[in-house]
């Protein structure tokens, strides 16, 4: 848009025709008070606080809803404006309880701040004040709606960002109440943002309630590592503890929002189940020792088990929550020792068949796609912030098609939801592939394929869309044809000029790949390491029952005659059974390090607090361990040196020559897709209590249709693999979709 000049308080400033006055004043640093306006939400113009005087307009105008035009003259400070602002401020306070001393928002309250500048120090209001009865809207948000000033930011957040109209205004006039429409309260995976947008103490954090004043805390910028986005956050700390996490703006990553998972996971940090002291196992009994003793015990143990030329008898496994630096140091230790047995892909049944698919679209670009095809994912719960970008795209007109094993609750319009059995996923992709091939290629595997209507229509959309993306999700990782699926996607993307987005692995898995935390030449992958029953294992923050695809095999491998070094942030029954030494390490916000997000963006963070008791950041432990092992090249002063080494190392990607198979193997039996509940995906989340009380956190179901249930001889009310069975015809044939809070054990 064209640049124009307008005059504000006598100063000429440049603006773009049509933009709202308030964005100009904000940019110019001119103070205009507001409550209902929020830069990421639609304009409501209802609080009337941002009234300014526009020459030629008979009445004061709201800066948030007044588009600028050439030559406009605006006054933000004159007597007329001041009178209006003071009037609105007085009205806002007549029915506000002014209970600041007992309000959690005190000190970070927009009403308080603006009232100090624009309000009066006395009120002429001597009538009775309005009182509003509160509803319990769930375990995350506390309500004191008597304090509500009806700015409707939370309502607009729900409608526009969260995608569910959970809050609304009922009643009218003075009886207008902002409240959830439904009894079940607020269930959105992004609900905590309502706390951030609420300008007053009406919506506050329930877990943080009555804990501290905002000015008592320090705020350290950090990165949330629970998903592939790495949302920017502030960890707010007091006396060495993280007491609250709030969103930090970054338009390229999380805009101004964070998921509830990122916001409330910190609660787990102070769980009593933390591993706090180094321990060694002597004659089958655990003994708490000093760090030097534990590390010497570790070095001795490794040396006893593995003689010089037997380095390949050692394996290292790490969970996807580790930092880039930790992945890098651990693989470097192994490689310096001479072992290539390194892996982070713990939950994949068949690593020969593991997915490799690059992502080549940025988060910000996702919102401008005009077509998306989602395969095997429930992005709302798995990658809430990626889903948020997709939602923006849909609101802007994009179409999304889905290929899943059962319908999920999308918070945007889905063009078509194709529910098909896992054994048909490769087939439908082959059909799409055949439909998009411009010439009849000599692809043998497509010769017997004929495309069904839905495949043809997806193909047409991919061909006609200008910006399309194919998204590969988590539900595919254990599909026996996973690699074929990934390759077909890659092929279709090439043919249709589409981007690909691989969200099949999560947390910090991209950092693991960047750090080369995968088996090298002659090395064993995670499953092979367990099958080989090596003589020694180094485990980085692993909780076998949750993390391994087959925890039974893991327990067998870690059994007798092996030396297992476990570095953990939390205690774990299985780890204490099978380990020989347990080293307590720092958890989220307690260590410096880096997260690599889906854009390949390396986001480094400092520790917000020090690790509790005797636990230490894992990168420091690994560095000392390397020194004790007398390995070369570990003279790092701080973690940033490791970061740059990790980022700059040469990585070679092997070309993937595994064949594509598209035959539908209907006879292969029943596929079980096991997905952890979104609030059980890592150890910190599993200890965050408020999240588990939410509706999302409570989900614990094995869904299947009637014929599958009959084949498995289970029914509603019974359990399958320890998870309650739900029989619904919406699930595809021969498939069980498990969304579970607890490990389901021995999923072979």
């Amino acid at each position: 848009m064209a640049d124009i000049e307008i005059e504000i308080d006598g100063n000429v400033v440049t603006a773009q025709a049509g933009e709202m006055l308030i964005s100009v004043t904000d940019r110019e640093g001119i103070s205009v008070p507001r409550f209902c306006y929020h830069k990421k939400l639609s304009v409501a113009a209802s609080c009337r606080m941002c009234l300014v005087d526009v020459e030629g307009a008979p009445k004061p105008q709201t800066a948030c809803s007044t588009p600028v035009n050439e030559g406009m003259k605006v006054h933000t400070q004159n007597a007329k404006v001041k009178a209006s602002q003071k009037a609105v401020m007085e009205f806002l306070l007549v029915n506000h309880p002014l209970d600041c001393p007992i309000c959690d928002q005190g000190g970070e309250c927009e009403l308080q701040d603006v009232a100090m500048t624009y309000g009066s120090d006395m009120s002429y209001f001597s009538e009775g004040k309005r009182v509003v009865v509160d509803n319990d809207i769930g375990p995350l948000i506390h309500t004191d709606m008597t304090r509500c000033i009806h700015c409707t930011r939370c309502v607009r957040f729900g409608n526009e960002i969260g995608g569910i109209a959970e809050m609304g205004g009922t009643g009218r006039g003075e009886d207008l109440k902002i409240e959830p429409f439904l009894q079940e309260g607020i269930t959105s995976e992004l609900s905590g943002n309502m706390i951030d947008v609420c300008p007053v103490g009406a919506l506050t954090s329930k877990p943080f309630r009555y804990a501290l004043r905002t000015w008592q805390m320090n705020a350290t910028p950090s990165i949330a590592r629970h998903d592939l986005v790495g949302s920017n956050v502030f960890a707010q700390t007091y006396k060495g503890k993280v007491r609250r996490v709030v969103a930090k703006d970054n338009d390229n990553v999380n805009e101004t929002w964070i998921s509830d998972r990122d916001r409330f996971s910190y609660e787990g940090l102070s769980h009593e189940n933390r591993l706090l002291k180094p321990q060694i196992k002597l004659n089958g009994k655990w003994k708490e020792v000093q760090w030097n003793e534990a590390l010497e015990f570790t070095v001795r143990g490794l040396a006893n088990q593995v003689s010089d030329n037997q380095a390949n008898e050692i394996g290292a496994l790490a969970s996807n929550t580790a930092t880039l630096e930790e992945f890098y140091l651990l693989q470097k230790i192994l490689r310096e020792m001479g072992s290539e047995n390194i892996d982070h892909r713990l939950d994949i049944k068949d690593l020969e068949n593991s997915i490799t698919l690059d992502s080549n679209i940025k988060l910000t670009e996702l919102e401008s796609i005009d077509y998306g095809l989602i395969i095997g994912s429930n992005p709302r719960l798995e990658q809430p912030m990626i889903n948020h970008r997709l939602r923006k795209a849909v609101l802007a007109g994009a179409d999304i098609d889905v290929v899943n094993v059962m319908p999920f609750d999308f918070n945007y319009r889905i063009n078509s939801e194709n529910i098909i059995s896992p054994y048909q996923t490769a087939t439908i992709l082959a059909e799409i592939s055949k439909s998009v091939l411009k010439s009849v290629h000599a692809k043998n595997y497509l010769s017997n394929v004929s495309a069904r209507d839905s495949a043809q229509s997806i193909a047409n959309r991919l061909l006609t869309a200008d910006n399309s993306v194919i998204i590969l999700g988590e539900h595919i990782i254990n599909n026996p044809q996973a690699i074929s699926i990934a390759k077909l996607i890659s092929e279709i993307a090439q043919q249709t000029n589409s981007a690909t987005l691989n969200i099949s692995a999560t947390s910090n898995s991209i950092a693991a790949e960047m750090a080369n935390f995968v088996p090298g030449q002659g090395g064993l992958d995670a499953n092979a390491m367990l099958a080989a029953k090596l003589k020694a294992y180094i485990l980085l923050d692993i909780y076998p029952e949750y993390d391994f695809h087959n925890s039974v095999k893991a327990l067998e491998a870690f059994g007798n005659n092996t030396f297992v070094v476990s570095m953990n942030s939390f205690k774990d029954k299985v780890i204490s059974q099978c380990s020989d030494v347990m080293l307590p390490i720092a958890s989220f916000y307690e260590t410096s390090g880096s997260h690599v997000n889906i854009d390949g963006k390396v986001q480094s963070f400092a520790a917000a607090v020090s690790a509790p008791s005797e636990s230490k950041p894992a990168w420091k432990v690994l560095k000392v361990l390397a020194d004790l092992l007398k390995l070369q090249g570990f003279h790092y002063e701080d973690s940033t040196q490791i970061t740059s080494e990790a980022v700059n190392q040469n990585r070679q990607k092997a070309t993937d020559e595994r064949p594509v198979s598209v035959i539908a193997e209907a006879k292969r039996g029943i596929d079980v897709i096991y997905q952890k509940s979104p609030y059980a995906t890592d150890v910190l989340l599993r200890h965050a209590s408020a999240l588990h009380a939410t509706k999302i956190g409570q989900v614990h179901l094995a869904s299947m249709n009637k014929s599958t249930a009959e084949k498995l001889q289970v029914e509603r009310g019974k359990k399958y693999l320890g998870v309650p069975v739900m029989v619904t015809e919406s699930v595809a044939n021969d498939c069980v979709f498990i969304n579970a809070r607890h490990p389901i054990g021995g999923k072979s």
Partner: protein
Amino acid sequence: MNEVCFKNLNKEECHSLKVYRESGGYKVWHKILQGEITPEEIIDELKTSGLRGRGGAGFPTGLKWSFMPRQSDGQKYVVCNSDEGEPGTCKDRDILRYNPHAVIEGMAIGGFVMNASVGYNYIRGEFMEPFKRFEGALKEAYDAGLLGKNINGSSISFDLYTHLGAGAYICGEETALLESIEGKKGQPRFKPPFPANVGLFGKPTTINNTESFASVPEILANGGQRFADLGVENSGGCKLFSVSGHVAKPANFEIPMGTPFKDLLEMAGGMRKGGKLKAVIPGGSSTPVLTAEAAMAMTMDYDGIEVAGSMLGAGSVIVMDDSTCMVETLTRLAHFYYDESCGQCTPCREGTGWLYRVLKRMTDGDGVPEDIDLLLSVQDKIMGNTICALGDAAAMPVESFLRNFRSEFEYYIEHGRSMIKG
């Protein structure tokens, strides 16, 4: 008298298509269907007529119609505001009851001028009889081939729907009305954008009052100049006045603009038995109240009423005699606005309740002398600071009642009882 909207009032079955046609109804529409009139000619004729919006704001209708981006692509709408809710007003109700075809023809002409093929008539929720009358007329019009797609084989299409409101005063505000038609909560939108650009379902929309639409066929049939000549300068034509209160024969009167108030009072049979004129609210409850002297000197047209110190509004004349306690009257009015505020924007949501509570306290006998200044200050803080005019509507009576009848308020505060009623 009764020359435009009410011209068939005294005929049998005056609401029927037959009677409407006999008096020249739908002739203009037929000419349009035959391509004999252009939209520009219609707009010019309306401008000549001096017709101003009859809903209360008094915006020139011809000018309003010329604002519509009629050449732009996409759907456009015309909407008729029959959500007549202003206390004191009942003229649109009677137009819908006795001359519904004039509204239909007026809207169809509007649709043609604005290039809008769909119209909605939003009728107040309580108007069940007018709603049925209008629906009946609509059926007649459809059956007679006057509405629909490609009417009479022309390229003109116009479909008209009736939408019954649900009893909220605020839905008479044109953008709240649009929200209500869209199925949303009736809350006014902020402007700009104006409905002419972003209206119903986000499309360009023209909204006019029932009486405005009903006047259009007559203006076009007999010429804008004739209509203008009926009235006075700056206030063309006739206007319906709903006279209510302490008069002998409360009724709707269609009289030429510029008629003296005292003549109108006479038409309404003069004051109720034994009463002496005390005060008049000339344009509906939201317009400032006038003293008897000011009212008796006033002529009933836009400028005449403004000179007297009030506004023509929707032409709802509330007459009060000397048995009226102005404190209690204002309290009742304040309660109305307190009750009908949508609650969306701060000054109105909080201010209307504040005004009412102070007045209620006063009529409960607990007023204090500072309350008068407090009321004036609160109404002043609402004025001009709200999204829609409801805030101003709540504020204006307070100021005028206190200005014109201050001593009654002072008496009520001092004695804890009404000066009039004892």
